[in-house]
């Protein structure tokens, strides 16, 4: 009897793992296909789709597609642009949003409640609904640069960075986190005569590791992965183009799929690597956006 149940148990366990693995295949096969295909010449890539070889690095394997992709488009430039825009925006965003949240939670000033309500209300404005008026706005905005006053922000880094620095979600995440910090800590420091800036720098921010990580991960994903629509309409010159818009170089009449796969692999693998290293932080960041409702 005991033997039967244990058999049964083993069988059920096997069935569970089989289900889990089958589902895993559904989520993995396109990605495996992408990486494997990037190593094959076009003709073989197409021929292999009709068999299991589509998912195996077999046959004429080389890095030729990568070499050709680099010849076709200034990929290094696109990558550098994306990384620069992402890093700058994330740093500025964490600084300005945490400062604002600090003020909303710990300081008492006229208009505080009203301002915070306005910010929270902007949570429901999707970027897609303001893209067009924003396009008109940034095309007319002035800027003081090295050559003096200029008009228009199109085809610059700043147009990809500055509008994305402050957002309600990041401020909101910091507000939620700061609310749970012990207020006595702050008041004690005030009694001892610490300035607000000192309290922000020496007490609050050193305690805020987790929320900074969450904000940084979410913002990086937005800036690196999802920056497509906006740069598409405000950046026409190659010098400032980010990676996702750079894909356009590979949409010729005759698409060279091997090169496309090489480019897709190149721009995705860094993110996947980050994700695999920091997966717990990634997943809990995403989960925390769900808590906002």
């Amino acid at each position, binding site marked *: 009897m005991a033997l039967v149940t244990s058999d049964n148990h083993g069988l059920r366990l096997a069935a*569970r*793992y089989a*289900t*889990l*693995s089958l*589902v*895993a295949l559904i*989520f993995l096969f*396109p*990605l495996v*296909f*992408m990486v494997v295909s990037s190593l094959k010449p076009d003709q073989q890539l*197409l021929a292999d*789709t009709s*068999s299991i070889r*589509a998912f195996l690095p077999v046959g004429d394997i080389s890095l030729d597609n990568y070499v050709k992709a680099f010849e076709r488009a200034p990929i290094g430039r696109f990558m550098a642009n994306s990384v620069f825009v992402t890093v700058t925006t994330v740093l500025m965003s964490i600084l*300005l949003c945490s400062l*604002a949240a600090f*003020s909303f939670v710990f*300081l*008492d*000033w006229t*208009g*505080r409640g009203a*301002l915070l309500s306005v*910010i929270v209300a902007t949570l429901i404005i*999707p*970027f*897609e*609904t*303001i*893209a*067009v*008026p924003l*396009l*008109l*706005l940034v095309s007319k905005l002035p800027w003081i640069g090295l050559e003096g006053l200029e008009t228009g922000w199109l085809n610059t880094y700043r147009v990809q960075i500055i509008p994305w620095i*402050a*957002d309600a979600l990041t401020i909101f995440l910091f507000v939620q986190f700061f609310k749970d910090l012990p207020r006595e800590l702050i008041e004690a420091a*005030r009694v001892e005569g610490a300035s*607000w800036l000192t309290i922000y720098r020496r007490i609050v921010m050193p305690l805020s590791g987790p929320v900074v990580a969450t904000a940084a991960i979410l913002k990086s*994903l937005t800036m690196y*992965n*999802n920056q*497509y629509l906006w740069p598409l*309409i405000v950046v026409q010159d190659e010098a400032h183009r980010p990676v*996702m818009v750079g*894909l356009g170089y590979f949409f010729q009449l005759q698409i060279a799929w091997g090169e*496309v*796969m090489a480019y*897709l692999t190149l*721009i*995705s693998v860094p993110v*996947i690597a980050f994700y*695999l290293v920091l997966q717990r932080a*990634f*997943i809990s960041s*995403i989960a925390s956006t*769900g808590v906002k*409702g």
Partner: protein
Amino acid sequence: MSSKLTRSNRAGWLFALPGFSLLFLFIIVPFFFAFWLSLTNQRLVSPNPTEFIGLKNYRDLLSVSIITLEPERTEAGEVVRDKDGEIEYPRVRTITRSDEFPQYRGMQEWFRWQSGDTAKVVIAADVVFMKALVNTLTFALFIVPIQGGGALLLALLINQKLRGINAYRTIYFMPVVISIVVISLLWRFIYSGNEGLLNNILSALTFGAFTPVDWLGNTETALGSIIAMSAWQAMGFHMVIWLAGLQSISPTLYEAASIEGASKWQTFRYVTWPGLRNTAVLVLIVITMQSFAVFAQVDVMTNGGPLDSTQTLVFQTVERGYGKQDISGGATISVILFLMVLMISAVQAFLTRERK
């Protein structure tokens, strides 16, 4: 709570101002600007000054009418039929271009159906916009159960105590961290007609019984294909949200259910599902909002085609506002889109209201 210790108008404003100013300039201003622009004829670049034109942009998008076409008749009053036996009708153009009906001027046929001998024709001022609107709503209608339901199944699957379960969670979540632009281009290849991976997989699974389909080149399958891919991409995202909900249900409830001898289904129906109510509303709303914003998939995979079957509201906003430099037209669609978002938010507020 507020004490002299924390009272500081100067520091308060000083700390909040940099962040708030940016948010004001780049979110709040363009938001209100959109409403204003939708009442004008603003273009991105134009030699003429901008004029206030009232609700004309909205009329140009939203006007819809039904006209009835009488069949062509012979002098004897017989209905004229073509060689296939179909009734012949006068062209819609004869009405929309006629001086007799100035109210229909410029409108085009959207779709028609037959009732008795007459044909009812729905004409719209902007057929492409109407298709984009219907497609966007269709997208939302289908992706909510597919993505939300699929994600719940994943969450239930992953919410088991098994060795190595985290590895599976990591895999299911992986497409979420890859750009939708990358995913779309990858799937464009997977979906392609002849050498397409999906056709080959399906034909291998059915031992060749499956006839290949040009998934994105066909008006009947293009939108569905984009929906399926989008559901696949973000399912892991919603799995995580469901998982958080599942783990907030008290284990004592499950113990009670098992003592009562409840079946697996009964446990789900009477313990798990009621405990997930708020999570369900959240998932529903987030997916709906995301489906209203669909752009990259369409831009990369189909460009709105074939025959406008994958047009969406955001794609139209960009095509007009940027492509045709018709800022006011793009802004008008943006405002309509925002009103839809607002309605969804109201539904959310209603569903999650505090109940006595």
